[in-house]
């Protein structure tokens, strides 16, 4: 099967010549359509750095990223276009703009889509995305009026509104109680059913059990890769 997203020999080094920190060291991995991969590791192990590089949010110091077999270009404009067209992001802190309404937050990916959907279509897609996460009633609400679980569902609605093929979730349930975490993971896994590749960074074993395979990262290196049969 052709991978949707692939990293080849990716390294990331922060700092100047005098003080350098290697956040990622020669990491290679593939994400396939319709699978959920769990990325586990301790804090500071390089999970977020890897997600940022895979999601084209930051550039690797060395190595290459491929989307559907094509290498990602260096050009900022093209990277922006690819982020918009291919990715949905879910973060531990929800990454919601606090002083904009739920509707406005969910609409962000559509505002930069190419071609730009008509205003009416944008609105109906936002409403549809919010209905999918059970938050259609919150369309005009401010994020401050919502609970943590509801905010995370807003972030999920935003991630799915542009029909991405890769979902990158960085500790999506870390700030949630177990019941809410379960419902959020169910929503995230629904992307997989639609054919998207899902990569979830976590150190929660309960969440890890929901994945198809687990990658472990330590000090910037992938140390184990094992197939996991869902129980």
């Amino acid at each position, binding site marked *: 099967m052709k991978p949707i997203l692939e990293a080849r020999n990716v390294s990331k080094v922060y700092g100047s010549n005098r003080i350098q920190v290697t956040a990622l060291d020669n990491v290679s991995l593939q994400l396939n359509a319709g699978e959920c991969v769990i990325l586990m590791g301790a804090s500071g192990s390089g999970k977020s750095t890897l997600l940022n590089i895979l999601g084209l949010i930051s550039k690797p110091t060395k190595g290459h990223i491929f989307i559907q077999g094509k290498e990602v270009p260096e050009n900022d404009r093209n990277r*922006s*276009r690819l*982020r918009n067209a291919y990715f949905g992001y879910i973060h531990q802190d929800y990454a*919601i703009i606090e002083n904009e309404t739920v509707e406005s937050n969910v609409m962000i990916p559509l505002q*930069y889509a190419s071609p730009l959907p008509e205003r009416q279509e944008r609105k109906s897609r936002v409403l549809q995305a919010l209905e999918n996460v059970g938050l259609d009633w919150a369309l005009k609400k401010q994020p401050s009026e919502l609970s943590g679980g509801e905010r995370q569902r807003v972030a999920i609605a935003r991630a799915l509104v542009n029909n991405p093929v890769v979902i990158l979730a960085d500790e999506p349930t870390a700030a949630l109680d177990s019941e809410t975490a379960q419902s959020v993971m169910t929503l995230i896994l629904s992307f997989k059913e639609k054919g998207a590749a899902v990569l979830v960074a976590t150190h929660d074993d309960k969440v890890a059990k929901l994945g198809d395979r687990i990658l472990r990262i330590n000090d910037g290196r992938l140390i184990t890769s094992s197939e996991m049969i869902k129980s």
Partner: protein
Amino acid sequence: MRELWAGVIMACRRWQAMLGISGMIAAACVVFALALEDVVSQVAVLKGGQHLREQHAVTFTPYYPQGEPTQVGNDTIQYVIDQINNRKGYTAIIHNMALDDPDFAGGYPTLILFGDVIPDLYPELPLCESVPCAMKGSKIVDEKINAVNIEGENIPVVGTLPAGATFFDPLAAGLPLDNRIVIRAPTKLLPLLNSIEKEEAITRTVLLDPEAKVVDTFITMNANSELYLIPHDIAVDQPQRFRELMGRSAIYIVGMLSFLLLVFIAFVSSARLTIRQEDRAFKIRAMYGATPFHLSLRIGGFLAAVVLIPPVALLSLLIVYLHIAGAPSPNVPLWVILGILLTFFLLWLWAIRSTKKIGG
């Protein structure tokens, strides 16, 4: 366009802080523009006296020991006429012409000039040529004023002065002419004037490169009529005034510039803080596909709403007001607008650079 507008809305969300700071900038810019306008017009007027300085003109200030009206003798008037007719001087009446006739010159203020040498002294002032003649200020639209009558002499109004025309009055400074009727009168009318008019004509006499004997004679003749005149050599006096004015202006301008600089520093800090507060929103947008161009437009809209639009709108109104009020240099606020534009672009560049790393 959508991103620009979104930037404006972003500024509106922080309207309390931004209104305060942009209001302060606007007020400081308006005060600065007014100060600058005043200085520029004063300097322009003083520069207008250049020909008088070159001619070593002597002017006079009156001193009235009795505090009573004086009776200028006919011999004194004739002496002034001789000087004027020999192109050795000129005189003017600004305030006291036809005080007993409210309909004189249609009720408009006048400037009566006596002397053929005047056009040579003020080449930048496009006066009518064949005396007697008169011209209307640019703001006088009364079509009925075709002529002005002085003591039976009908003086035709032959044209209109350009807007912003100013006469250099050696005893004061700039005399705006937009709302005045400027009359070039023949010297033969001087003896026919009443005593108040004659007195002003005498005190405003300007002698060009006179010998000491001429000045002494003129002062003595007037002293006999109990009009005591103190002579001033413009070549000495005006540079002194010019230096004083420039000194005062420098303090004025430096003070205002310092204040403006402080306001701008406060504004820049505030704007940078606000942009930093919006940094997370920029990152989220960049994550979902906003290009650096999108973000720079959004920041541009924000900065335009705060630093550009309020002060420029106020300064534009000020320009209109200065034009209506007939100020000598009504376009000076344009310089301040240019400064604001420069600040806007510098801030914008800084903000673009600081958000460039997002999504890199």
